[in-house]
């Protein structure tokens, strides 16, 4: 029974791999395997490569200097941040809001099995994000460390523990959100705020740990190494991964105990949360003078309404906006300090690089917003409405791009301006930088739509499947990051001024090409979905 549920959950998340939407039938086993391998190669090759490089850079010096535990601490910290970011906003809806809850609960299936199947869906996402860091971490350690039983077992067991810790933290927060949202009227906003507060607490703890590590590293340089206070706990965690027996046992015991506790809490409350329909008080309609809008405004309104009505969609797809505003405000307040810090560190050599670095850094942050990547799939069963309206498919797609621009462009421009002010960029470069950032935001919106049109999934039972667990979103986000990274790297290692103008042209050309595709073939695909 549980196996069947898990299979259903797995197929739902990975439907795109097994079902050919163009041909309207399942892929052959061989076809599905090849398709999965292709995407695994892309994702692992690109992101895995990035973290492999980081692990390679850190492992050698730290392990040979006897700081293997510190190497693990840094890498596991990255995995934890990435894992929480990847799964924390999805857990609430993945666990409790699936549309097939009623159907499954009416069947002779133990409720616990339904919950476990849902938990496995969350865990799968957690694995996707954490293993990208944990696998290179382990492999690089094996290459440089002295190999014995404990140094082999330590990283593997601790990798498993980190994935479980991410599951504990995200499901714990999901449970808190669920309990509180039962009592709230405006669920989407309340859920968003609670989830953000939870994330804030997690990152507060994480940055405290980073501060401790930084303080420790400062002491290393003065050869005054002393492990005390909170650093002892961090040392223990790192040492466990490096193969120290007792810390490993303690960490495992703590995490397994926490997991058991979270499981018991979820088990006891699952059915009540899933079946409680609190609903808001009935709002009685009072007629008001109607106002008419243009077709394009109406379509844009519809898209924005969809985004803001779903806390999952809003949080997962536009978290970058919040981050950009936060960084922009911080920079505007601390512009002198940040500017001086950078110029004191790098001197005048950084001046010619600033335009391209600012553009690349802003693009990196805007890539976190993946609003259009699930925008077609999320229409789900409602898509017939857009298809039967007397509007061109391109108008519907343009409204989705418009929504991305509304939520991303303003924070992106604000961030760009604050960066240019903080780093005293030449006024002559203000306009080109603002243009490159604007076009990049447009390109990201078009790219998300392009990928989603190629890999749509309109038959889902949980919107998280398309918002977070879809290939479209992963590919769109990672493509944005990789492009931004290339922009930054080219600015550092090549002629920064020349590269700025090359990227300026490349991004405009790419955005124009995607625009042409969306108006033509993309629109045809949309109308035939």
């Amino acid at each position, binding site marked *: 029974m549980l196996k069947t549920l898990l299979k259903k959950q797995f197929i739902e998340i990975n439907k795109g791999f097994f079902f050919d939407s163009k*041909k*309207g*039938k399942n892929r052959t086993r061989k076809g599905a395997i090849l398709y999965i391998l292709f995407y695994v190669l892309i994702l692992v090759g690109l992101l895995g490569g990035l973290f492999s490089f980081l692990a390679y850079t850190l492992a050698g010096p730290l392990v040979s200097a006897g700081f293997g535990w510190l190497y693990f601490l840094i890498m596991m910290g990255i995995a934890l941040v990435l894992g929480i970011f990847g799964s924390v906003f999805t857990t609430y809806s993945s666990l409790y809001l699936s549309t097939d809850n009623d159907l499954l609960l009416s069947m002779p299936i133990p409720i616990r099995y339904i919950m476990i199947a849902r938990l496995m869906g969350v865990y799968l996402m957690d694995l996707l994000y954490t293993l990208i860091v944990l696998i290179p971490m382990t492999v690089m350690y094996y290459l440089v460390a002295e190999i014995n039983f404990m140094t082999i077992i330590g990283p593997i067991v601790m990798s498993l523990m980190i994935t479980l810790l991410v599951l504990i933290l995200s499901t714990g927060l999901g449970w808190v959100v669920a309990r509180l949202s039962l009592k709230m009227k405006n669920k989407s906003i309340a859920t968003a705020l609670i989830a953000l507060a939870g994330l804030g607490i997690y990152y507060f703890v994480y940055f405290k740990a980073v501060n401790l590590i930084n303080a420790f590293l400062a002491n290393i340089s003065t050869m005054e190494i002393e492990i005390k206070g909170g650093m002892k706990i961090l040392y223990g965690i790192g040492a466990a991964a490096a193969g120290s027996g007792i810390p490993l046992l303690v960490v495992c015991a703590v995490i397994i105990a926490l997991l058991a506790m979270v499981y018991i809490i979820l088990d006891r409350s699952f059915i009540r949360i899933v079946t409680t329909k609190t*609903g*808001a008080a*009935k*709002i*009685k*309609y*009072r*007629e008001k*003078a*109607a*106002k*008419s*809008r*243009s*077709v394009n*405004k*109406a*379509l844009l*309104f*519809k898209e924005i*309404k*969809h985004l803001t*009505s*779903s806390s999952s969609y809003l949080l997962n797809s536009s978290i970058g906006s919040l981050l950009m505003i936060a960084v922009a405000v911080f920079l505007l307040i601390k512009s002198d300090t940040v500017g001086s810090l950078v110029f004191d560190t790098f001197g005048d050599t950084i001046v010619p690089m600033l335009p391209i670095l600012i553009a690349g850094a802003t693009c990196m942050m805007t890539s976190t917003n993946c609003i259009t990547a699930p925008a077609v799939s999320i229409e*789900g*069963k*409602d898509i*017939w*409405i857009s*298809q*039967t*309206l*007397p*509007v*061109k498919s391109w108008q519907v797609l343009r409204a989705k791009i418009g929504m991305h621009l509304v939520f991303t462009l303003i924070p992106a421009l604000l961030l760009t301006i604050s960066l240019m002010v903080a780093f005293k960029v030449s006024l002559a470069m203000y306009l080109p930088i603002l243009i490159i950032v604007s076009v990049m935001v447009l390109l990201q919106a078009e790219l998300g739509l392009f990928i989603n049109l190629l890999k749509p999934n309109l038959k889902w039972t949980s919107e998280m499947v398309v918002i977070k667990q879809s290939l479209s979103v992963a590919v769109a986000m990672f493509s944005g990051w990789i492009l931004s990274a290339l922009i930054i790297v080219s600015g550092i290692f090549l002629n920064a001024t020349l590269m700025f103008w090359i990227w300026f042209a490349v991004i405009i050309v790419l955005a124009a090409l995607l625009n042409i595709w969306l108006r033509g073939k993309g629109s045809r695909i949309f*109308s*035939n979905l």
Partner: protein
Amino acid sequence: MLSISHLTKKYGDKVAVDDLTLTINNGEIYGFIGHNGAGKTTTIKAVVGILAFDNGEITIDGLSIKDQPLECKRKIAYIPDNPDLFDYMSGIKYLNFIADVYGVSASDRQERIRKYADILELTEDLAQPINAYSHGMKQKLAIIAAWIHQPKLIIMDEPFVGLDPKASHLLKQMMRELCDQGGAIFFSTHVLEVAEKLCDKVAIIKNGKLIKSGTMEEVKGDSSLENVFLELEEKPEDDQSED
């Protein structure tokens, strides 16, 4: 008003609709009946322009759905078999959205929303989010949305499913009123009693092929529509080509 000529639609090797020809004139309520999987929904989706077809021609008020889809869509309204609407909107916001897209003026939409929501007893619930609606309420909202721009042709797939008896009765009245004003209705149903009482003309489809069509009297004669339908369903396909 609606002309379907030699419509053929295939899914892979399977022929879902096979050389179907039908004409629906102004003022007619046209029923479309057939067993599950006969090809009714496929035909309807092709007519409303959300399913590309392999052969044939569909024209609405003389305009081709293939060549002038937007002009055709402005003249029609569609209610699918399952009223999946924008759950994230309230009923009134959904109606205003539809009215905006069809270019219905503020005063006209207000008057029509008032009229049809009152008829279908949905007025009080218009401010509620659609995700709080029952199936029947969603169906009523879809009906109001279909009528809001006063289309010339309304195409409905199983429109009576989920409606309570009173709402069903009111819908039938609205359908007749629209046709009396020169519009036309094309709808599929499994409720043969409804089709028999309501429709001016009827078409029976089996395995994608039209096996009988015409006025109600021509199709059923002295028998009941149910008897005719069951007889035709049992007949081998080869014997039905002349019908």
